[in-house]
């Protein structure tokens, strides 16, 4: 941004602006920038940070020298599994929350009990991951005997099926966890998309309907293009959130039974395996993955600045 766009009136001395920014700047430097950089450096060191990463190399096995921790983070089977799971999370959870959020926003717009319906969908946002974890562990509860106290298995057995251990069965457990994520975050997407839908001018919608367009066409050809910028915001925000997903997996399965995700591996390497170098390398990779989405958000911000 060039100075040309800044009006003269906004020049309020040289020091004053910095005083406003100073508290935030200091605390963020101390608690995000410094430890973040420290961790970045640690990613090139060995397990306890005392030697360069290459020290962990073993003769005769592949070694990336100073990037040894990155070799582990990008090639170890458990990490590949985590990357695959994270991809699954991003695709299904972002798709699920944004899709369902949009669907509910559109549906709720047409009924009289809109506020109630939206409040119900939004409520999980107020609940902690720990609380949601307990709620859903109870839904997924698996009884070995006759009685199923978990709702899902009760439904399955009532329909004549065999009860399933949802959280330890590799065919289901990732989907079971993602469902919890969708349950928690759809309200967020719905609220933002709903507000955006309401800002679509009714004249345009009426005009399209008078011209004989079906509701389906009105939705795809009129509404969606108009709210596209908002959809983009919601998608980027959700992608960044989902890439960092940690608590649901930590509380519900602890990453066992093949449900590892990247952030969970990062925690595990740090606090269980005491491999701070590897953990740091994973953290750096996680940040690199989110950078494209961050740039997108900044661009949008600049566009707004220009039209103000």
């Amino acid at each position, binding site marked *: 941004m060039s100075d040309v766009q800044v009006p003269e009136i*906004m020049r*309020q001395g040289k020091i004053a602006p910095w005083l406003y920014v100073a508290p935030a700047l200091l605390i963020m430097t101390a608690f995000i920038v410094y430890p973040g950089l420290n961790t970045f450096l640690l990613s090139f060191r060995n397990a306890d940070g005392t030697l360069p990463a290459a020290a962990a190399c073993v003769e005769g096995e592949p070694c990336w020298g100073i990037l040894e921790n990155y070799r582990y983070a990008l090639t170890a089977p458990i990490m590949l599994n985590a990357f695959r799971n994270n991809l699954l999370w991003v695709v299904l959870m972002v798709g699920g929350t944004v899709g369902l959020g949009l669907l509910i926003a559109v549906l709720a717009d047409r009924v009289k009990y809109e506020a109630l319906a939206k409040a119900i969908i939004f409520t999980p946002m107020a609940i902690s991951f720990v609380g949601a974890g307990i*709620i859903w562990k109870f839904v997924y*509860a698996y009884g070995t005997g006759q009685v199923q106290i978990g709702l899902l298995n009760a439904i399955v057995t009532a329909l004549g099926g065999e009860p399933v251990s949802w959280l330890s069965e590799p065919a289901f457990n990732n989907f079971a966890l993602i469902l919890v994520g969708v349950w928690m975050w759809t309200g967020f997407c719905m609220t933002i998309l709903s507000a955006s839908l309401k800002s679509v001018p009714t004249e345009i919608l009426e005009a399209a309907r008078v011209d004989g367009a079906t509701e389906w066409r009105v939705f795809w050809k009129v509404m969606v293009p108009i709210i596209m910028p908002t959809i983009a915001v919601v998608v980027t925000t959700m992608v960044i959130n989902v890439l960092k997903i940690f608590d649901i997996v930590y509380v519900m399965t602890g990453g066992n039974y093949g449900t590892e995700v990247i952030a969970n591996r990062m925690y595990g390497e740090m606090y269980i395996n005491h491999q701070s170098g590897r953990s740091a390398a994973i953290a750096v990779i996680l940040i690199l993955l989110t950078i494209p989405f961050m740039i997108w958000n900044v661009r949008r911000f600049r566009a707004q600045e220009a039209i103000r």
Partner: protein
Amino acid sequence: MSIDRIKMMLGKLPTHLALICLCLVWLVPTVGLLVTSFRPFQDINETGWWTAFAPRKEAGQDVYEKYLAPYYGSDGKAVEGVDLFDPELVGQFRRSIALTVFLREQMEAGKVQLEEMPDAQETKDLLTYLRRVSGAEGAASRPRFTVDNYIDAVMGYRGRASYRADCAEGEQALDLNCNISDLMNPRGMGRAFVNSLLVAIPCTILPILFAAFAGYAFSWLHFPGRMGLFALLVGLQIVPLQMTLIPVSRVYAQLGLNGTFLGIWLFHTGFGLPYAIYLMRNFIGSLPREIFESAYLDGMSHWTVFYKLALPLSMPALASLAIFQFLWIWNDLLVALVFLGGQRPVLTYQISNMVSSLGAGWHLLTAAAFVSMALPMIVFFSLQRFFVRGMLAGAVKG
């Protein structure tokens, strides 16, 4: 009613159905947990929570009706001198074999003529049934719903019965005194609730205050590198919290801040700021430019403009940010785990501790979960307006 209106209603039917189904799916898991938290713990593992409102089916009732009801009657009193529903009599049958022996004696004495004797499993069910209806086990008087789970969770009771029952009998668990001081038992949810408040309130106020300052400067004051610095600070949102835990806790160990409230206040303030600044800048920045221009032209100082104009006008954003931040801190587990741990347990820590140490103690887990959800839900529903408005200021206008 005109045909058009009927057509319109029918046309809306799929909308209603789809929406109501979705709402039910969203609601049912939570309702299940809420119902469970009020059920006696003996019931929780025996029957699904959805049966809690249905008529109770006593195990063994059908066996009784098949074998004994024709002779002893549905009230167990039909035979002179033998009352099967008498707790004293039933109390004598310690094992089901005793009941079999008793029934044999009854037959030999000629009091009844059973066509066939119930088999071993049936006798067992029969005894369970007699125990329940006679009240020999106290089970017949067991209520359908109870608040005992909540009392046990708040007090941190870990025994086999319930806090109230134990205290009524004068038996105290290890760390409980059966008086008001139990509310502050370090293992209980009551103490954790207070700790959560002590963490959440300062952690809400501090970052919002600092973010309001910064948001104002980034919007309406000019200084070199403004945009770059803003992008950088907001960009810090992507730094995962886990990435900073180790260096910070090392520094804290040197300063003696581990396990203190001050340590966690500062840390949360740091991590709350990127989003708070983003939101505040977007909100203050979207206020009409004319207001600020004319205020500066009138000779108001930047400070006066800040606290007389920017701050009051951004009240909705401040309120919504406060709710966001409060919920986030209240619901956080990881930071509390690392920086406070068991020294000053907060609600989420206490619950996750219960999950690992108690296994499937659903009656305590469900009650504890709802204790932790109560406040955020109240905050959320009473201030929802601000919450939604602020979220939109951050995302739609931005």
